[in-house]
């Protein structure tokens, strides 16, 4: 098997520079502070989001037969890198994840909702997480079948843009199925306005809007089911790989920008009569940051290629990318604050915004501990099934 192509084509390089100039003009890093401090903010600039929809970014990886662009996740990753560079606040990640779920189902309602999402008329996000740590095995939300539909109850936590969304893709398990059995997980489309849905809005330190959602005996029609208990677990797993890889790409952009900020500071800041970047103690740490950035770049691109090839076989590459993105972003953001000295602790310096984002993004879609265990298990299973 030939090695996957990990370079950017001319077209992808052009996509990158047009995304960079658009976001540089419309969504600079300073916007994170502005949106954070605006009491009426919905956690996104409506105009910027509208333009993202017009640029067809949500549609980028959706098949053209389904109304998308059909370009795949590799170029979409290029866009996420650019979003990450400016720490852009937008629901694009969770929307892409919800779209990945809806793409797999042929249901009429899903098709209609997907079309509404792609033209920006509906905001639909994924609501799957229930615990403070990412753990796809934990689904406490339950549903049962009734004569004309379903009843759904449970709690989803840390839902991105959960307070702004029109509807949610919600994972739930059939009442009575054992917890770790593959069958029994289904996905439902739940309107935010449905009776029995209550929303608690809040933000974490990275200023992205989130919500805890409580579903109390929410009555759903048959058309709300978008993945049945036979296929729900697989659909959910695939869209989780998508979200994890895109988040890793976004983090790559963020950590690259944080590295650039820090290196610029090392060149400019003079102490003891010389730029502090001439001190070997700092040079070696900064060099290690560049090593981590280059390694993360390769890991992220390999994961996106693996997703485009076969999302069912991408788990290892995606975990490798998330481990590198987590560890490199945390290393660079922490070292960045340290190397900025006192300035790095002020709200005025951008490096602190990257530190806050690093902390949240590393915990989202699985911390390094989670992903290290996951690839170790995959490798050991592969080894023992090969006859050890």
């Amino acid at each position, binding site marked *: 098997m030939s*090695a*996957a*192509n*990990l*370079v950017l084509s001319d077209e992808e390089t052009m996509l990158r520079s047009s995304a960079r100039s658009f976001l540089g003009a419309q969504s600079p890093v300073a916007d994170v502070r502005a949106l954070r401090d605006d009491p009426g903010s919905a956690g996104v600039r409506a105009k910027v989001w509208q333009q993202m929809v017009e640029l067809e970014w949500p549609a980028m990886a959706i098949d053209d037969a389904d109304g998308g662009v059909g370009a795949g996740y590799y170029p979409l990753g290029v866009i996420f890198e650019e979003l990450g560079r400016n720490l852009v606040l937008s629901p694009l990640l969770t929307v892409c994840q919800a779209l990945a779920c809806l793409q797999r189902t042929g249901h009429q309602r899903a098709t209609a909702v997907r079309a509404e999402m792609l033209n920006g008329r509906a905001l639909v996000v994924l609501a799957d997480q229930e615990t403070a740590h990412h753990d796809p095995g934990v689904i406490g939300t339950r549903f049962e079948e009734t004569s004309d539909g379903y009843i759904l109850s449970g709690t989803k936590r840390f839902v991105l843009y959960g307070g702004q969304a029109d509807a949610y893709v919600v994972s739930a398990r059939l009442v009575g199925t054992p917890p770790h059995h593959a069958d029994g997980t289904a996905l439902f489309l739940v309107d935010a306005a449905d009776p029995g849905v209550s929303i608690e809005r809040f933000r974490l330190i990275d200023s992205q809007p989130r919500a805890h959602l409580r579903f109390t005996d929410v009555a759903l029609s048959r058309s709300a089911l978008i993945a049945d208990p036979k296929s729900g677990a697989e659909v959910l797993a695939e869209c989780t790989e998508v979200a994890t890889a895109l988040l890793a790409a976004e983090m790559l952009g963020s950590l690259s920008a944080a590295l650039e900020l820090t*290196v610029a500071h*090392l*060149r400019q800041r003079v102490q003891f009569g*010389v*730029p502090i*970047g*001439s*001190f*070997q103690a700092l*040079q*070696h740490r*900064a*060099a*290690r940051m*560049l*090593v981590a950035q*280059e*390694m*993360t*770049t*390769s*890991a992220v*691109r*390999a994961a996106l290629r693996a997703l485009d090839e076969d999302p069912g076989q991408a788990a*290892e*590459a995606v*975990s*490798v990318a998330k*481990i*590198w993105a987590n560890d490199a972003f945390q290393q660079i953001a922490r070292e960045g604050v340290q190397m900025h000295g006192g300035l790095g602790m002020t709200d005025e310096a951008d490096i602190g915004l990257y530190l806050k984002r690093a902390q949240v993004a590393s915990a989202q879609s699985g911390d*390094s*501990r989670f*992903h*290290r*265990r*996951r*690839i*170790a*298990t995959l*490798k*050991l299973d592969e*080894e*023992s099934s090969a006859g*050890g």
Partner: protein
Amino acid sequence: MPTDDELSRFRNEVAQWLDKQCPLSMRQPLLPGESLPAGGRRMPGVSDDARAWLEAMGSRGFIKPHWRIEHGGAGLDSARVDVLAQELARVGARPPLAELNTGIKMLAPILLSHGTVEQQQRFLPLIARGSVRWCQGYSEPEAGSDLAALRTRAVLEDDCYVVTGHKIWSSYAHMSDWIFCLVRTSNEDKHGGISFLLIDLESPGITVEPITLLSGSSVFCEVHFSDVRVPRDQLVGQPGAGWPIAKELLSHERAMLGSAGGGLSGGGGGRSMSLAKLVGKAMEEQDTGARGALAERFGQHLAELAALKATTVRLRQENRRDAFMPSLIKLVSTELNMKREDFISELLGLDALGWDGDVAVPSVGRAQGWLRSRANSIEGGTSEIQLNIIARHGLKLPQGAAQ
């Protein structure tokens, strides 16, 4: 581009030639413990068939078939080179010469960019045929990371440089025929007083001694020069122009070491599989808490290996010429190999630490492997030197006072 007719004629010609020239034993894979010849006048333990095959391939210019004929190659275009490779693969022929060849990988590019026409015609064919083995004379006891502090003197007397000094860490000097050396032709300028000299190891006044390492006997040697007379036409480049040549050669060396990656690249899959077996076995012996920690450690190793592989693939595809990239790959691959050795040692406990005795043969090999790996972050430029290069060329940070 040659026509299909010409290519098929060439293919027949090669096939007939191979039929006659490639001994049957050279069409078999290497046996355990067997290795490919390293070339040169001294090749202990190399079979008659292997010598004949090396001689046949070398005299036909087929070891470096794309090199020019006057340089010992066969002057073949890339289409014919491909045909030759296909025909060699078809009969299952072994490579006639080991891959990591100091003459081919390190010296030849320097002769091509800096040597005179006479030097190229004199030395390249012997390199291309594998008939002369080269080693490197760079480090000295007082000039390691600060290589430019070297003190081996070369004083011009009539038509000869007279060389006196002491080189260290010359790999395989005891098996080599020639050595390329950095020597000091002037004391006035630290970097500007360095010259690049080619020396026959059979010259009077040279003694070579192998070095014993932590891990036992090694391929590293010390080379002493005492009033060794070297014809002045064996100086490459101008006198005093040796430092840029030396740095250029070091980047070829790092590329070679990085591609070998402490044996990581290419063999990576197989090596990680044996680690997986060890981890799997250790898992069975541990309680649940320890298993989680072990899985995390193994997972981290797999993530580092996967990203290193992806990075070497990406750099090759991007065709990047950044001066710091060989340093980055060298740094990461050697550190990863050392971590792997540490991990295995930890998994095996005392079983990994045998030194000698009747029962401990596999264990002794393991301990030697672990001890030897400690050199990975020192040889070919320490990790600290690589970090200097990455900071300067990758991040454009200003040079400090002591660098």
